[in-house]
C-alpha cells in the first residue's frame, strides 16, 4: 500500500512566486502595517495602563460599606 503520509507540517507544494512580486508584497505589507502602527491610539488603552500602575503603587482602599 502506498498511502500518503500525513505530515504535521503543512505541505510545501507551491511554486515560488516571482521575486519581484514578493518584493512588492513585502513593501506593501510594511506600508500597510506602518499605517496601522501610526494610527491614533485611543485614550482608553493608555488610561488603562495608568490605572493599573496607580493601583499597583497604592491599591484602592476597600469600601467601608463593604463591611456592612
Amino acid at each position: 500500500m502506498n498511502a500518503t503520509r500525513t505530515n504535521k507540517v503543512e505541505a510545501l507544494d507551491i511554486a515560488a512566486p516571482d521575486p519581484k512580486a514578493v518584493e512588492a508584497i513585502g513593501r506593501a505589507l510594511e506600508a500597510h502595517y506602518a499605517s496601522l502602527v501610526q494610527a491614533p491610539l485611543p485614550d482608553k488603552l493608555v488610561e488603562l495602563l495608568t490605572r493599573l500602575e496607580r493601583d499597583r503603587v497604592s491599591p484602592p482602599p476597600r469600601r467601608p460599606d463593604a463591611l456592612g
Partner: protein
Amino acid sequence: MPSASFKDELLAEIRNLRAFAISLSGSVSLADDLVQESLLRAWSNSEKFQPGTSLRAWLFTILRNIYYSNYRKRSREVQDSDGLYARRLTVPGDQESHLDLEDFRQAMTKLPAEQREVLTLIGASGLSYEEAAVVCQVGIGTIKSRLSRARAKLVELLELDEASHPPVERKVRRAG
C-alpha cells in the same frame, strides 16, 4: 505583582499589539477591545513572562488566544477597518513599479486568517520564525509553509504573476 517598569514596557508595545489585532480581526473596534483584554491579562499574569524573551511575542500570543477563543466569530460580522485609512496610497516600488495599497489591503482580507497572521508576524511586526511559531503554536515548518502560501495567494489576487497575466492587466503599474 508587576515590576515598576512593566507598565512602560507594555506601553511601548501597545501600537504593535493594536496593529496585530486590527490585522487579525479586520475591525478597529474589536481590536481595541482585544488589546484592552490582552493588557489586563498580561498585567495580571506578569510573573509568567520570562525576562530576556520577546515581550511582543508574549503579548501577541495572549491576544491571539483571546481572539480565537472569544472574538473570531464576531470579527466576521464587524469589518470596519476601512475607516482607519484616510486616503488611497501607493507603495513606491523599485525603478519601475508600485502597488496600490488599497488593493493590497483588500487582498489581505481575502487570505485565510492563519496565513494573514503569519504574513503580519514575519513580514511586518519583526518576529522571527521561531517566535511566530510560538505565537501560532505550530512548528517552524508550518510557519514557512503558511508564509509561502500567503505570498503566492497575494501574487494571484493582485495579479502580480507575469507568467499568467499580460503586463497591461497587472496591478503593478509600469511607470513612465
